């Protein structure tokens, strides 16, 4: 049988942790920074390349209708928006004033953040599907000038079927999974918050 003071004495004889050194942390910081920078750079370069290729196609290919250019424009806007949101979000969670808040306030912030991520992910998925559908729909107008009526019908039916599957099956599964994950997290955060309330 030990009393608390004995546990305290025991606590003070514990070995030094040698798992993480100052140098290791500093090199991780550099590595993470480099990794993040190169990831960001890859993203930006990819987007720039896509935009340049699209611009080239815009200028050089004589389209029958302006709707094709509009469909390209929609896809590019979606890509750029997605990239900006990811960067902003990454910066918000890592360099945040909230990190220095009292635990109860920080948990509230985390809860709000998780809700925001959930909304963003599910809403963006919807917007992405809708935008892509519109873009493909607009491109189909162009296609109608090139392919036969039967080929066009098959393509339209296949595209509609694919988007219906995306919207009513895949998206529902994704949202359900995300919502379960969110509920589990919120449940845990609520219980933590309760522990730090007066």
């Amino acid at each position, binding site marked *: *049988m*030990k*009393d*608390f003071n004995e*546990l*305290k004495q*025991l*606590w003070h*004889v*514990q*070995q*030094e*942790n040698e*798992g*993480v050194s*100052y140098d*290791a*942390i*500093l090199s*991780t*910081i550099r590595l*993470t920074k480099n990794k993040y920078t190169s990831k960001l750079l890859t993203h930006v370069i990819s987007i720039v390349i896509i935009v340049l290729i699209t611009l080239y196609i815009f200028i050089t290919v004589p389209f029958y209708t302006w709707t094709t250019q509009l469909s390209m424009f929609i896809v590019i806007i979606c890509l750029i928006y997605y990239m900006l949101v990811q960067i902003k979000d990454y910066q918000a969670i*890592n*360099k945040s*004033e*909230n*990190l*220095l*808040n*009292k*635990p*109860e*306030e*920080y*948990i509230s912030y*985390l809860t709000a953040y998780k809700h925001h991520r959930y909304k963003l992910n599910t809403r963006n998925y919807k917007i992405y599907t809708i935008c892509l559908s519109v873009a493909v729909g607009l491109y189909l107008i162009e296609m109608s000038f090139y392919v036969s009526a039967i080929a066009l019908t098959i393509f339209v039916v296949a595209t509609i079927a694919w988007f219906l599957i995306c919207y009513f099956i895949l998206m529902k599964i994704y949202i359900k999974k995300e919502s379960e994950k969110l509920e*589990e*997290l919120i449940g*845990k*955060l609520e219980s*933590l918050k309760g*522990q*730090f309330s*007066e």
Partner: protein
Amino acid sequence: MTQNEALFKSIFDRNNRKVYHLCYGYTGDSDAANDLMQETFIKVWQNLDKFRNQSQISTWIYRIAVNTCLSYLRVEKRKVTDEINERIIETKADEVSDKQEQVNQLYKCIAQLEENERIIITMVLDEVPYQEIAEISGISEGNLRVKIHRIKNKLTEIYNRHERF
């Protein structure tokens, strides 16, 4: 070494031990504790500019460490590492000293407390003044004293229950 690196090194040297204790107490797993400690100091580095002109650095570091621990919500991962950790502890049992084994046991017992209790008791064991613990945890000092009394009893009871077996 840049000025920032020198400041960071001094912060790390003075606080890494306590931060590790806090993270180990919170997770009950030394590997996860190292991960959390690393995460904490990365956040310290990223927010170093906010630290300037702060008088109580340990409170500032502890806040970041506590909040980093609180955002450690990877339940599934933890279960797996717990199992692995159990196995590692079992196989290494002969290698570690008897005292260290008791310390490991103490950490396991701390990990059985509620999350806020784990955070508070590791700070108590590290002899952080009550006023500072109250400041870090956002709990009033009066309420904290009551909590600490209860946690001490609870931890002692859990430890002794484990020691009997």
